[in-house]
């Protein structure tokens, strides 16, 4: 009987062991970001002029919190020359959750206002503690339209 229990426990442990936890962020990362949003409408009646932008900064991971600080510069993709690139700073803490069992995982970022967005994420250079040294995040989102009209790619490199 004892032997059967021990076997069952071993099987449970083995099962738990095979369901490896997803990698995580920890510490400080250099962060870069490229975003491109489609221009929509017609030439005669544009509904928006699209957007191109790039960002650079630092992401500090602490538990489930990711704090982003840095600089972003963006401008309309189409413009008559009156709206050149503007540079602004950002600082925001979001929470994150990773699901999946292998690359690419799914990451959900939730802003302080409760709005969340889901992206694909690839974790590389994962150490024995499950902390990623390099990560690439890719996905689409909407900047106000009903459907997604923007794409983004972010790269995180651990310090």
């Amino acid at each position: 009987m004892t032997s059967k229990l021990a076997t069952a426990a071993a099987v449970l442990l083995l099962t738990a062991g095979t369901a490896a936890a997803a990698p995580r962020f920890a510490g400080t990362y250099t962060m870069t970001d490229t975003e491109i949003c489609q221009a929509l409408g017609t030439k005669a009646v544009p509904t928006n002029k699209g957007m191109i932008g790039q960002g650079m900064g630092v992401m500090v991971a602490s538990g489930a919190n990711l704090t982003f600080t840095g600089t972003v510069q963006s401008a309309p993709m189409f413009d008559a020359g009156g709206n050149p690139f503007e540079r602004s700073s950002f600082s925001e803490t979001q929470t994150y959750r990773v699901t999946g069992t292998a690359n690419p995982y799914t990451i959900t970022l939730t802003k302080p206002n409760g709005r969340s967005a889901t992206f694909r994420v690839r974790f590389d250079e994962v150490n024995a503690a499950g902390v990623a040294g390099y990560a690439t995040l890719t996905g689409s989102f909407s900047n106000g339209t009903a459907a997604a009209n923007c794409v983004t790619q972010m790269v995180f490199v651990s310090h």
Partner: protein
Amino acid sequence: MLLRSSALLAALLALPAVASAAPPRLVGTYTMSGPELCQYLIGSNTGRGQVDLRMLEAVFAAGTVKISGASVGGSLFATAPDVGTRTKSGTIPYRITGTANPYTMTLGTAPDTRSYRLHLSQVDGSGIAHHAQTLETDTNSAGKTVCTRALTLHRH
């Protein structure tokens, strides 16, 4: 005596602070890649919405950087396909200034210089940064910032 000791202590305390304020260095060979995105200026010939992806090699040594490689790109809008590859090669003076991220990297010799915002990381015990990121804008002939350019540098 007390004053002298205080002055000596202050000097000793200040020394490490000055030493640690020196920016990390870029030394050796780095792969340099990244996109450049430019606005399409409506009703103007000064911008056609250029998109370029760069893959370069940068060798840093004694105040100069030798850059070689190529970029591939084309116009966002064109009457005929114009995607192509452009090779780049040259050696240019550079310096890094600042006390913390983002540092400033200045390329060229005055008055023909260009400044980049520079983020340095993965700094080893010798003060060499193994990873760097730049972000800058570019202007057209009218002085408008019509392009954004980011480059990632990774040491071999």
